[in-house]
């Protein structure tokens, strides 16, 4: 029996790209939430958390409306890159991003806020700009929690099913991620393939969560 490993590689690639994007976007949003006072802060916080609670079909629907070929954003994408966004692996990245971001923002914000405020006061008192303070003091002191959150976000990005199916579809060899491939294998009675992929995904996720636990700072 030959197993097609493409879905696994695709999933890893999608998870990697979406986690990287979520890392920088999440860091920025978490910084705003942790340090700035502005109108609509609560709304931003809630909006970022929304993907954790909404059904995948709702999210998928939003993305299709927002990024579909008829939408302004979809058209813009098509003009710039010459091909549509939906039903490509890049759409799967957007789907995974949506799930990675809330985890990253929540944990990163908590990590930034847990840094002793006296270190930040000391840095300001010593003449450090907010930029220098963030990169040289706050971030180094919070990096363990942030990396733990990144590992968690990566694991979550790896396992998305519903939204990916809706916006990227199920095109074998092009947009079929591992979660979708398992669904396919089960549906078509291909038990051996399903079992192998399930096992591999579980082991990868377990390893990532163990890593996340190792990294979290309050481990005794």
């Amino acid at each position, binding site marked *: 029996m030959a197993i097609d490993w493409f879905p696994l590689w695709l999933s890893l690639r999608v998870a990697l790209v979406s986690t990287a994007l979520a890392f920088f976007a999440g860091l920025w949003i978490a910084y705003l939430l942790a340090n700035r006072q502005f109108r609509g802060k609560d709304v931003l916080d809630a909006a970022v958390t929304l993907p954790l609670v909404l059904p995948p079909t709702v999210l998928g629907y939003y993305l299709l409306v927002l990024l579909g070929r008829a939408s302004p954003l979809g058209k813009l994408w098509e003009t710039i890159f010459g091909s549509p966004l939906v039903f490509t692996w890049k759409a799967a990245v957007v789907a995974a991003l949506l799930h990675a971001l809330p985890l990253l923002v929540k944990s990163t914000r908590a990590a930034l806020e847990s840094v*002793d405020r*006296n270190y930040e*006061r*000391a840095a300001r008192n010593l*003449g*450090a700009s907010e930029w*220098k303070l963030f990169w040289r003091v706050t971030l180094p002191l919070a990096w363990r929690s942030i990396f733990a959150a990144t590992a968690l976000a990566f694991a979550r990005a790896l396992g998305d099913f519903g939204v990916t199916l809706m916006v990227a579809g199920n095109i074998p060899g092009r947009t079929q991620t591992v979660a979708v491939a398992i669904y396919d294998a089960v549906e078509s009675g291909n038990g051996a393939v399903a079992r192998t992929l399930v096992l591999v995904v579980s082991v990868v996720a377990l390893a990532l969560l163990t890593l996340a636990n190792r990294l979290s700072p309050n481990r005794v």
Partner: protein
Amino acid sequence: MLQARLRKSFAPRPDSAGFTLDLELTATAGVTVLFGPSGAGKTLVLDSIAGFVQPDEGRILLEDDILYDAAAGVHLVPQKRNCGYVFQNYALFPHMTLRENLAFAAERRPRLERHRRVNDMLDKFRLEDAAGRRPHEVSGGQRQRCCIARALIGEPKLLLLDEPATGLDAVLRAEFYEALRQVRSEFGTPMLLVTHDLTECFELGEEMLILHGGRIVQKGTPRSVLDEPANLEVARLLGAFNLLDSEIRTLDPGRNTSRLQVGEFELEGPYFPGHLKGDHITLCVRPEQLKVFARNGRPGPNQIPADLLRAVERPHGIRLEFSGGGIPGPVRVTISRAEYENQRDNREWVIQFPSDALRVL
């Protein structure tokens, strides 16, 4: 020189009473001590000067720089104030070595100077050996000195210290005072030190400001404050007095005498200007100014018979607590060890109140 006039109010909330800070202070060369109980607003003063907190009204002037001026709408960010701050827990960056901590602070100096400046500070504060280690790997004394060095490296015009010796053992405390004396002699930076420890005021302070409930209730040298507490509140805060309810019986300005009713006995004191016969006042006398003797028949003038409740060992003598003479609450007397050895077998005691030691509040 620092000149500050500050006012900041916090409205009462369901979980806390309201609070208003309203004071004026100056700090010149040497150490100015801001003394007061917890919740008096001491740290708020430092934070306002350092720029972590914005007052509602007032003006803060450090030499020629206006740090804050409510009327002119000036509120400099902490980065631009050039006040060194020694935090209670030092706040040395835990992920940097001591050298890196100093280098971080030196970055506001011109590039060519930085390296020399860091080495200079490491040398002055005897930190060369520990320079490559992180704060948790060095001794408490080295952490202190590093924190002071880091605060001084940018040549601040003022050093703010927030209860830096609280929670230190005696050895570290002594080292810390030594380091501050070094700052005074080598750098001449004016220091504003917050504490609730009276001993510390005497150890370091040339000028002492007593803060209570957001206001300065008395200022002067530590000695003068202890000799002449301005009011009952200050005397209570200092915690160094016997405070006894009494009544003025007679006042004689001509012979500079007075008589005071304390419990069941009368004491002779000096004339108390500004008081009237019949006034109910608080007699304020320090435990080390009182003397004790074995009772021998009728008590003499200014002596009150009393029963010894307990004797407590103190580092510099014995603290005796007495009751009796119709005085509510114990009367505390501090005597030397040798004196106590002579008198410990007394069966009955009298307390002598020297008339020149009596103050009324």
